[in-house]
């Protein structure tokens, strides 16, 4: 039955003859493992098409939707992480196997006449592959992809004469934006696949015309056909390559997705690993020679490979005789490997890079966590802009860290915020208000150490009382009984100077403790510190510079310190304290400048 159908089909299509033509190719010198790379590349290419089409069915090329849709693929769609991982690692594997293919062809001298054109097609495919990877990488519009593509298009802009125009064409304007993403997308899913398919077609056609190139000392009387020995070798190698891609994908859980890009946030940008060598070379060379790394050397390498069939043209030479042409290729490969290794090693030792990477990882983790509750139509950046744990640290670093240390970051000009308003922080304040971690580096020196004036019990009670001032719904419970015992102590021992609920110090002497450390109190302190510290205030009022939302987010972020441990240990060497007048005038000068 099946046979009869096959007969019928063959009669109509002639498929058997076509199949025989495809598989019956003669291989002079017999099947060889060294011939497997080309077909492995074809198999990966097909996998890239399949996984790419799947990803296209979800991905959205808009700057508000791109990150979100990739998040959705990575974390929501069934099998999405695996498909995305196969695609991402498949692309990288393609570059690796292309390198192997190129080396094999070079060692066997397969670029010599009459195969020059096919060698050039191969080089063109290598170039297209890089463009394909470079346009795919920024599609999630995440920090890594955005910054890498920004740098790459800038390098493109440094090409003499046509650079500026070329960059503007690719980016679709003067700056990275929506058109840039749409351009990358169209290049990646339409233009490059079509160009790639055409070139592969030509490459395979020419390969069939000339056949593989056996090593110079091969026994050419030994002949075999593609089917089945070479086919089996090719298949076995393709399976191994795909298994590596699959295991790689499973091991890292898909492919990395960094946080949605906010161009105003620092990101430790690095190119993708297969361009790290150029990056490292650029750093090792003096800045005046930057273009040597980005343009001249790649140009020379490309030119050398292009000209190779003419340079090395004598037929049937031994590999040893051809060494002068092979050495530059291997030296280049070795150099690339070495520079890549140095770049990775240097980054792993670079504390600054490591810290920035860790912060970026944390942003990515938080973004994914928030996205699980749904992303607003305005996009993931808007989602992060309303999250205290994303927006808070950014605002703190921009606005507060010039005076207040938090988690080891910032300057000791005002009270340290690490553990602010926690019991231990308050205890430290009672012990020595003039400590540089409290008010020692401000102009407020009126408060005396309270160690002698409070009994141990009173001290615990008054701390609990002040701590309780900052409580908000949802907090872990505090000791209300202890706090209520603290109130009379506070009224007795503290209110000569401090105000509480409109009572206390007649003349303004020290800050108001009503709701001390609560969201409203911190927000007031940020917006209008004079309202709390009166004339002794040195802090900038942020009511005009920050939106109400930002002040609220910052307050939530800072208030969380009541549950953290304050800073202890030796202080770093501090610069001399700025005088009040000079600081104020400096601030004023800054503002006038703006």
């Amino acid at each position, binding site marked *: 039955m099946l046979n009869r159908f096959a007969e019928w089909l063959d009669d109509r299509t002639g498929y058997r003859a076509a199949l025989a033509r495809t598989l019956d190719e003669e291989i002079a010198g017999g099947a060889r493992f060294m011939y497997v790379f080309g077909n492995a590349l074809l198999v990966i290419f097909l996998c890239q098409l399949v996984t790419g089409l799947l990803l296209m069915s979800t991905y959205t090329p808009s700057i508000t939707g791109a990150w979100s849709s990739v998040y959705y693929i990575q974390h929501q769609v069934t099998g*999405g992480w695996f498909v995305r991982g196969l695609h991402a690692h498949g692309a990288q594997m393609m570059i690796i196997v292309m390198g192997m293919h190129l080396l094999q062809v070079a060692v066997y001298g397969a670029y010599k006449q009459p195969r020059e054109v096919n060698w050039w097609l191969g080089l063109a495919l290598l170039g297209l592959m890089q463009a394909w990877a470079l346009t795919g990488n920024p599609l999630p519009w995440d920090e890594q992809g955005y910054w890498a593509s920004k740098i790459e298009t800038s390098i493109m802009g440094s090409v003499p004469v046509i650079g500026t125009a070329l960059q503007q064409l690719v980016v679709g304007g003067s700056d990275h934006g929506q058109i840039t993403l749409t351009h990358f997308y169209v290049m990646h899913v339409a233009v490059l696949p079509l160009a790639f398919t055409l070139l592969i077609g030509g490459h395979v056609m020419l390969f069939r015309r000339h056949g593989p190139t056996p090593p110079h000392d091969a026994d050419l009387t030994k002949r075999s056909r593609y089917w089945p020995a070479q086919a089996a070798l090719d298949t076995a190698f393709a399976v191994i390559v795909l298994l590596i891609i699959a295991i790689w994908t499973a091991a890292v859980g898909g492919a990395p997705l960094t946080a949605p890009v906010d161009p105003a946030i620092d990101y430790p940008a690095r190119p993708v690993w297969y361009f790290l060598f150029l990056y490292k070379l650029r750093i090792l060379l003096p800045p005046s020679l930057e273009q040597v790394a980005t343009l001249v050397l790649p140009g020379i390498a490309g030119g050398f490979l292009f000209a190779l069939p003419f340079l090395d043209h004598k037929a049937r030479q031994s590999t040893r005789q051809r060494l002068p042409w092979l050495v530059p290729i291997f030296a280049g490969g070795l150099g690339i490997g070495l520079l890549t290794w140095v770049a990775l090693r240097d980054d792993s030792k670079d504390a600054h890079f490591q810290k920035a990477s860790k912060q970026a990882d944390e942003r990515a983790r938080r973004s994914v966590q928030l996205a699980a509750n*749904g992303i607003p139509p305005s996009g993931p950046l808007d989602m992060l802009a309303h999250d205290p744990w994303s927006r808070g640290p950014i605002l703190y670093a921009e606005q507060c860290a010039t005076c207040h240390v938090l988690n080891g970051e910032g300057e000791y000009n005002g009270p340290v915020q690490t553990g602010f308003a926690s019991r231990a922080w308050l205890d430290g304040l009672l012990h020595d208000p003039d400590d540089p971690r409290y008010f020692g580096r401000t102009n407020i020196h009126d408060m005396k150490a309270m160690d002698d004036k409070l009994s141990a019990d009173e001290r615990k009670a008054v701390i609990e009382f002040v701590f309780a001032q900052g409580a908000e719904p949802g907090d872990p419970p505090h000791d209300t009984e202890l706090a209520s015992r603290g109130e009379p102590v506070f009224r007795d021992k503290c209110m000569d100077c401090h105000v509480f609920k409109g009572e206390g110090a007649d003349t303004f002497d020290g800050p108001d403790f009503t709701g001390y450390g609560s969201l409203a109190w911190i927000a007031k302190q940020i917006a209008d510190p004079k309202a709390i510290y009166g004339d002794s205030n040195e802090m900038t009022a942020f009511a005009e510079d920050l939106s109400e939302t930002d002040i609220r987010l910052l307050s939530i972020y800072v208030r969380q310190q009541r549950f953290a441990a304050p800073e202890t240990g030796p202080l770093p060497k501090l610069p001399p304290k700025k005088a009040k007048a000079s600081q104020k005038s400096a601030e004023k000068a800054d503002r006038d400048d703006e």
Partner: protein
Amino acid sequence: MSKDASKSRRDFFSWVVAAGGSAIATLLTVPGLAYVLDPLLRGAGQKGRWIRVADLGSVSREHPVAVPVIGEQVDAWTKASAVRLGTVWLRVVGENQVSAWNAECPHLGCKVSFESEKDCFTCRCHDSTFALDGAVQDGPAPRGLDSLETRVQNGQIEVQFIRFRTQIKERVQIG
């Protein structure tokens, strides 16, 4: 090499190609199918929920009134708070009693309008008509308009907004 050895060698190679090819196909097909079938595995969308749609005062006893249903929508990765989800027809039928129908035609989901001259609902896509109580009068609609549960709270009409599958006689909820 003997003929037998050569044949078993060829068989082995063929087997390698077949097994390897199947392995590659499986590696792509299984996650690929899961990916494509995700909308089926994910199950239906949001369940019905009470949504405030109008002031009791703005709805009439004489003729039905169409009002938009505005509520939270989860659409793939997006969650939006005030999205127009659909339309309901409302009519007062008694003291604090309101009838409501989903304006989606049970035939193929077009929006049903009201024709005041004929005093009936019509779907202009395929000319189904429905009586004032929602019962099908004419045309291809397989059932009457889908009535929705209502309640009046503090002078506000709330509707239990549900969507139903089209094309069938029975009322089967989506979600």
